[in-house]
């Protein structure tokens, strides 16, 4: 547990109490439904696999909102992965697209409920912890959208 996490948990508990006091237990419950659904529905838990080709993982949904993304950036354990060293495809489909080939004219579409798989030429041993950050640029709405998750690398 990172330093400061206890205070964050206490803060969350206090905020939950405030919410329940002001708006009833239903509000705390309903906000948790949404938070839990979001947490389990973006990064597919356990999909971080390590093998001879490097790392792979799956997003079941876009982080925040769907769209056509013209650029992707990936960091694994804090280290940036060059765009020509990682790729993307609709999960289950054959064709990978190197991240370096994405552009405004040739973006990758990531939409609700259509899983997308990412592969990176990054070597991590099975069982190693990994912290992954993926950044996505959508020309229609410029601010960067990102997702971060921590998981243990499993064998492919």
């Amino acid at each position, binding site marked *: 547990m990172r330093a400061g996490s206890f205070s964050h948990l206490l803060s969350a508990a206090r905020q939950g109490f405030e919410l329940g006091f002001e708006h009833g237990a239903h509000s705390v419950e309903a906000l948790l439904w*949404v938070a839990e659904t979001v947490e389990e529905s973006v990064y597919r838990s356990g999909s971080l696999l390590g093998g001879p080709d490097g790392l792979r993982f799956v997003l079941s949904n876009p982080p925040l909102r769907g769209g056509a993304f013209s650029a992707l950036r990936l960091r694994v354990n804090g280290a940036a992965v060059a765009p020509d060293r990682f790729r993307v495809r609709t999960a289950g489909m054959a064709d990978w697209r190197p991240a370096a080939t994405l552009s405004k004219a040739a973006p990758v579409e990531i939409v609700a409920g259509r899983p997308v798989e990412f592969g990176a030429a990054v070597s991590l041993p099975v069982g190693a912890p990994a912290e992954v950050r993926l950044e996505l640029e959508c020309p229609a709405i410029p601010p960067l959208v990102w997702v971060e998750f921590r998981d243990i690398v499993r064998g492919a």
Partner: protein
Amino acid sequence: MATGPGPTPILLRSLSAAVLADGSGDLALRREARGASEEWGGVYGQLVRLTGPWRLRFWDGAREYGLPETRAARSTVGERWRSEHRLGSIVVRQEIAPTHRPAGAIRTVRCSVEGDRPVQLTVHSAFRPYLLPTLVEGIRPISYRAQTSAEGLHLRQRGFGLDVRSTVAPSHLYIDRASWIGGRRDGAIDEFGSDHELVVAPGTESVLRWAIVGGLERDLAGSAGDVGRRLADPEPTFAASEREEAAWYAATPTLRFPDAPALEQGYATARAALRCLYSEPGDSMTGLVAGYPWYSAIWCRDVAWMLPALLWLGDFDWTARSIATVLRFQSRARLPLLGGEPGELPMQISPGPIFFYGTSDTSLYFPDLAERYVRHSGDVATAAAWRPMLRAVIDWGLARTDPATGLLRNGGEAEAISAATASIARVRYGIDSPDTTIWDSTDRRDHAIDVQVLWWAALGSALALDPAGASSRGPAPVRAALERLAATIPTAYDWPEERFLADSIRAGAPVKRLRPNALRAASAGLVDAARARTMAHRAAEDDLSSAWGVRTLSARDPAYRPDAYHDGQVWPIATAWAADAALAAGDAELGVDFLARIAAGYVADAGGANECYRGDRPEPFDSCFLLGLSVGPFVSVLFERLWGLRADVRTGELGVRPCFPAAWRSATLEGLRFGGGQVTLRYSAPTLEIAWSGPARLTVRFAGGTVAVEAGRTASVSLPSPPPAAGTLQ
């Protein structure tokens, strides 16, 4: 990359449900969203997306048919959509309609056969479950619980749920196209399907009807009886709903502009669009959804832009309940996880209740809305009950005010939420959006000009409503802040090279970006009429304006991109601001020209009202096909600026200062609700006739003076020409 918005959408809605389709026969609607092609068709209930596409297939023993390729006719009657399909010798007549309480849809197919032999028909129904509030627009849950009972199928996703019932029990069930025996199943479900067997005999009609209802699981618990009755005979429900719709329209004013029929049609379209957005989704919430398809949630900023129009339409009750709903979710404490600060009003609310904070402007609209509500309705008691919440809003604003400049600070809200969740969630996601003004995808820190104008209006309204209070520290700091802002805005933002005002102030210096937001200062009367007129004309130049409306950023700005949401696209609300400013400055021709551009958009959108268009061509891009922001301000400008109305039921005074183009010879406004009566205004240049049905004297203020109209009587006055500048924000 997806191009073009897609087919003209079909939107059917009740007060708690919506059905989206493309008119092909199935509930499917593929639309471009943020450059990607996405499916938005299906059934929505209680602001929860219940299903994705819902399709039917028919098998007559020899051949399989779908609805889109067999469609022979279609029509819309009220909120019911009908289609007719020819499947060889079989005729299928379909009707789809939304329902309210329980929220959902009823879909009926009536099958008949041409010929003298009966046909055995299998109808296959398939839909994709969703079950998450639309405020989480980009997510489809991955795990569900499916359970069958004697009443039908029940799908659950945490506290959200949907029930499916049909008049003909399924002969087979499918999950992800694999046969399912029923019972209970937990896990991933991509598609749920069912077969229904019908014998279609010559000379008779075989009827199969489904109901899909849902939203909050707890609200489904007691709904089985209602669903059963509606399945057996939905007509009484539909008829009651149609009577309610007709009564609402009958209570709203009629506008006639013989010299500008496009504006007259635009008003009719905008009024209907506003009605489409009415929402009473549950949990005692009342409001209007922001738009369709992906903003079909109650966004409180968007509600605030629609409510002034509702007041002119005479719906005081809905306005009061909408304001009360938002105030109910005011943050009483610091809630960093939700972005809330004490006194702040929510950005979004949804049944659950679910609510989020974290905008710089939403709270600021509500003191002014409350003040308008009192003037229109005369309901002083309700507004008095709102005073503690409105004082808390003013306290929130005062706490965000920079003591050095007197300007309200915007920005940092989303970053604060991200920081608050950093150590709690295992999976985090977010957006590097440093700012949350109405143009929330672009950085307008630290003191966006429209936020300052809103703050100024909020302070003035708080003092008007609550002269002895207005804040927890009394009226003195409120009055001081108001006066300081009025002095600061026209000077600190001055941009003489552009004959305009700067977009923001950052680190003490004006941010010299040309955006339509600065026109709000002109509308508010914070600059003199001559300067307001100059600003309106500057906005009409072709870097900021196009033939289809006003851009969010000048095309000469280095950051301009025609497909950027808030850095180049054309927004009807920005065009309405330009019309508002021009008419406030007394330039009727320019104001009407801007209004006509919005109205032309409604025609091009086939009765819809797109959120935004590309900056370089009149093509919707990344645009909800119907948005309250695109209709509410348009309606308000027609009443407040074009007709120049200001209502105050408390004093019995109606201000009427029309700003019509010189070439106009006539205009009529019938049935304006005012206190206990209705006002009808008939203008025939230069005479204005006022007919009043109320029980007491009405005083009408116009540019040439005042006239008293006794109860049930009519009066006429001669209006001066040309119309003077109004110069104040209503």
